[in-house]
């Protein structure tokens, strides 16, 4: 009987806290949204399940959580003993040390076609303009009494790029990593909800109906040369971005070189899927109530929403500004795709554009600022890391 009572004390039912229950509920909501609304299911299902797993109360000293990392202790005889970490802590190692984000970038690079960007390079400016969200949020976070490193990590949520956000927070503010990752991925999933009202508010009906010239054909040589040249340009200017951009352009070179199709195929399919599973699940498992349900997390979520809104507005307004000087006008909706969130924000541009004119196909054009936004946010992360880690 005593053994049974002792066992009951170790069960989740006995030691679950209110916070754990809330986090488990949030995990279930994520899975529900992914399945029923199709919001970023490849991310929200692993994160949601991870949140459920991470919030089952663990037995003291059993080493089950992601935070039970391996360590050394000195025993009473003065001998140093190695204490192995939990299984989840080893999976989480890839998040905490920033290993997974560059690997995901490799897969993204192998999937990305830069043709539309190469055919209409002026659209790259929209990817730069949308980065205003990153730096505005950085200032907002400073205003809310976060320190510089924390503000930098929070600001990058505005880049709308989950791997970049995880990478930078693992370097600058590891204690906020869970909240920042969840905020970044949640808002990425909510791109179809957040962006359209802002896009419609800032554009007139005529502007939304602007048809853009079809992109020119890009030669194979251009596509082969671009990843190496673009990497050199970016890395020389912002060396902090070499890990992310190096992998992104390496993946793209595998695709465009045309002689490593097998490697490119692996990078964009099984490889990126495996890393996404490990990253999503372990980020979810890191959202333990005791670590996650803090005042800071709420502020991060608020700032994250603000950064998405500012980034979207920045891209749209800059497109309108460019139109003042251009003869071939840009549809300002395309500017909203500068926030990255590949390819969801480009799809949103297409959707909003077609609501005004079903014969207007903006997806191809929106992909240019979309991929430029990925490059821009990685550069922004590199700049913030270099400036703040000193």
């Amino acid at each position, binding site marked *: 009987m005593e053994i049974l009572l002792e066992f009951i004390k170790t069960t989740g039912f006995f030691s679950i806290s209110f916070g754990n229950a809330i986090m488990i509920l949030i995990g279930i909501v994520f899975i529900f949204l992914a399945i029923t609304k199709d919001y970023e299911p490849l991310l929200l299902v692993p994160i949601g399940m991870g949140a459920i797993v991470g919030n089952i109360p663990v037995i003291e000293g059993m080493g089950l959580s992601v935070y039970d990392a391996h360590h050394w202790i000195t025993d009473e005889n003065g001998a140093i003993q190695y204490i192995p970490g939990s299984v989840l802590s080893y999976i989480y190692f890839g998040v905490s040390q920033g290993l997974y984000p560059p690997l995901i970038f490799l897969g993204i690079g192998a999937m990305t076609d830069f043709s539309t960007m190469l055919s209409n390079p002026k659209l790259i400016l929209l990817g730069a303009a949308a980065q205003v969200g990153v730096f*505005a949020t950085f200032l907002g976070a400073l205003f809310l009494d976060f320190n510089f490193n924390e*503000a930098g990590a929070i600001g990058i949520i505005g880049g709308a790029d989950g791997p970049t956000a995880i990478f930078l927070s693992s370097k600058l503010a590891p204690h906020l990593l869970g909240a920042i990752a969840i905020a970044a991925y949640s808002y990425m999933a909510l791109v179809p909800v957040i962006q359209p009202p802002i896009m419609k508010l800032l554009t007139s009906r005529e502007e939304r109906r602007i048809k853009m010239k079809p992109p020119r054909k890009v*030669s*194979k040589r251009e596509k082969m040369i*671009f990843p190496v040249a673009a990497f050199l340009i970016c890395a020389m200017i912002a060396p902090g971005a070499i890990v992310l951009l190096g992998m992104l352009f390496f993946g793209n070179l595998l695709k465009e070189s045309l002689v490593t*199709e097998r490697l490119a195929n692996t990078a964009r399919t099984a490889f990126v899927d495996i890393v996404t599973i490990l990253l999503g699940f372990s980020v979810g498992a890191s959202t333990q109530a005791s670590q996650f349900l803090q005042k800071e997390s709420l502020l991060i979520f608020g700032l994250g929403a603000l950064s998405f809104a500012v980034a979207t507005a920045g891209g749209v307004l800059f497109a309108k500004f460019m139109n003042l000087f251009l003869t071939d006008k840009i549809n300002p909706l395309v500017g909203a795709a500068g926030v990255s969130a590949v390819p969801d924000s480009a799809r949103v541009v297409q959707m909003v554009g077609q609501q005004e004119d079903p014969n207007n196909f903006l997806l191809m054009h929106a992909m240019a600022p979309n991929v430029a936004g990925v490059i821009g946010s990685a550069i922004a992360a590199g700049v913030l890391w270099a400036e703040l880690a000193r």
Partner: protein
Amino acid sequence: MQLVTVAMVLANTILAESIAARGIAIAITGMAIVAFALLLIIAFISALPKLLAIVERFVPESEDPHVRTANSQSHPESQVADDDAVLAAIGFVLHSRLQNKD
């Protein structure tokens, strides 16, 4: 006592101002660096067709072994992904024909 309070308020104001000043400086510099890097990429992409036109005079793209290989799809590495699709298509046509015969 009042002097200490005034000094503390002043110190806090100066500190807040210096944090704000550094923050604004980082934000403006960061934005400028991102814009500069992307402007350089734009410049490079705009110049690339002209550079390639010069290269084309000496090494035509049709004679480039990699590009030619890609066009003819004869490189063994490039065939890997397509083989399955071709086989699936052949299989589908055969299956349809055989079903029609029955």
